[in-house]
């Protein structure tokens, strides 16, 4: 067999195994984006509406998680903090010290920092009058934020959010360093045994490329679906 046939055969044989990693990759991003969303929204609301102390606290959080590389955080959390937390029997059921949890926590906490800034920008881009009108109707600030501000801000945030998806997808490939069996990790191990890094790294690239593309298309669909009639012109970020 010549080189090219050999390379293609190796890739073909490894394909099912590597594609199996897509589930782990997807699980990682969905959990991390969810965690980032659940934390990012309150962080953004705090950043916009809270007083000096809490606002600075959010600022500190964002500075920390945007400043430390994902890779360093993965080592810090997986081998350090979470391994230590996992040694408490009380926390054992949470399985915090598994590689998957560590990756979700690191990607999620970092994404929360970025998502909070996305939502903050969206909230601040809304006209001041929206909050004022809600208050004038007798709504509490909480009611106004939940029923008036967030439904609009979250819609505006979708384009930036789809960008966050593609960043998170690419960052998720780093989870291989702590042994999560996602696409990159499987590619590496197959490449190491078959000595075919060239076709396999191209294959991995194609898989990630396809996932980016599909995800962005899906979020575009979502954006169109929740679009408010006639709203887009004024609602661009």
């Amino acid at each position, binding site marked *: 067999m010549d080189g090219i046939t050999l390379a293609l055969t190796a890739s073909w044989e490894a394909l099912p195994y590597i594609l199996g990693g897509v589930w782990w990759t997807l699980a990682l991003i969905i959990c991390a984006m969810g965690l980032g969303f659940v934390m990012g929204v309150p962080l953004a609301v705090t950043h916009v509406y809270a007083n000096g102390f809490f606002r600075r606290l959010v600022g500190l959080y964002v500075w920390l998680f945007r*400043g430390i590389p994902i890779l360093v955080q993965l080592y810090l959390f997986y081998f350090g903090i979470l391994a230590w937390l996992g040694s408490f029997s009380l926390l054992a059921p949470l399985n915090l010290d598994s590689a998957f949890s560590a990756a979700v926590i690191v990607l999620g906490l970092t994404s929360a920092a970025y998502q909070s800034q996305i939502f903050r920008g969206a909230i601040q881009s809304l006209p001041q009058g929206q909050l004022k009108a809600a208050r004038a109707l007798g709504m509490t600030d909480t009611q106004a934020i939940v029923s008036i501000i967030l439904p609009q801000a979250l819609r505006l945030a979708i384009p930036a959010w789809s960008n966050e998806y593609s960043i998170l997808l690419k960052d998720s490939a780093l989870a291989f360093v702590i042994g999560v069996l996602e696409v990159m990790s499987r590619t590496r191990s197959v490449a190491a045994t078959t000595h075919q890094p060239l076709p396999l790294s191209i294959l991995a690239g194609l898989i990630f490329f396809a996932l980016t593309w599909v995800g962005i298309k899906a979020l575009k669909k979502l954006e169109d679906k929740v679009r408010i009639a006639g709203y887009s012109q004024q609602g661009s970020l």
Partner: protein
Amino acid sequence: MNEFFDFIMARVVPALNTGLWVSVQIIVPAALLGVAIGVTAGTLRVYGAKPLAKAMNFYVSLFRGTPLVVQLYFWYFALPYISIGGFNIVLSPMMASIVAFALCSGAYQSEYIRGGLLSIKKGQLTAAQALGFTPVRSVVSIVLPQAFRRALPGCGNEIIYLIKYSSLASIITVNELTGVGRGIAKATWKNTEVFMVVGVYYLILVTVASFILKQLENRLCIPGFDSNRSS
């Protein structure tokens, strides 16, 4: 506490300082190359001949669409398998890192440059040509200096990203900050302490870089010329 401090000062900090130097040796050339590639690719995407613009678009979507770690892996492990006329290119870990970071960063930088170029009014180009500038001259001397100022906040952000992603070089055995940290952590089993200090190093790097970039932005600022696109 004291013991912790001694450990940090005696073992971790000196080692990390050498690692920091290696990181800088990767970051600076990669950032400069990245900006150069970004300006070239961005300009070609807007003003280049159709096939060139298309080729640049393809380059950008390819490098933005795949993880940097996959690209790094390609340049270091896979490239040597490609033989061009019986000649194989083998990059050292340092070189592979710089090439990977510069090419990836350049793809992102070109997005900001392109956005900056598109934000400059058509009249600028027309006016330059009316004064007798050649098309190339008018883009280089008139449009690019304005576009670059518009693109600067984004380009600066991209350099910050590059600083953080330079940590990936440790995956292909470069002993930069993260690599050195990993080494000490493995040897001493003090993961939390060591990686916290590594984190602090990056925070300082990133904060100092943001400060410098902000200064640069202020220095290049033209009165009344909005550096944030108003359109």
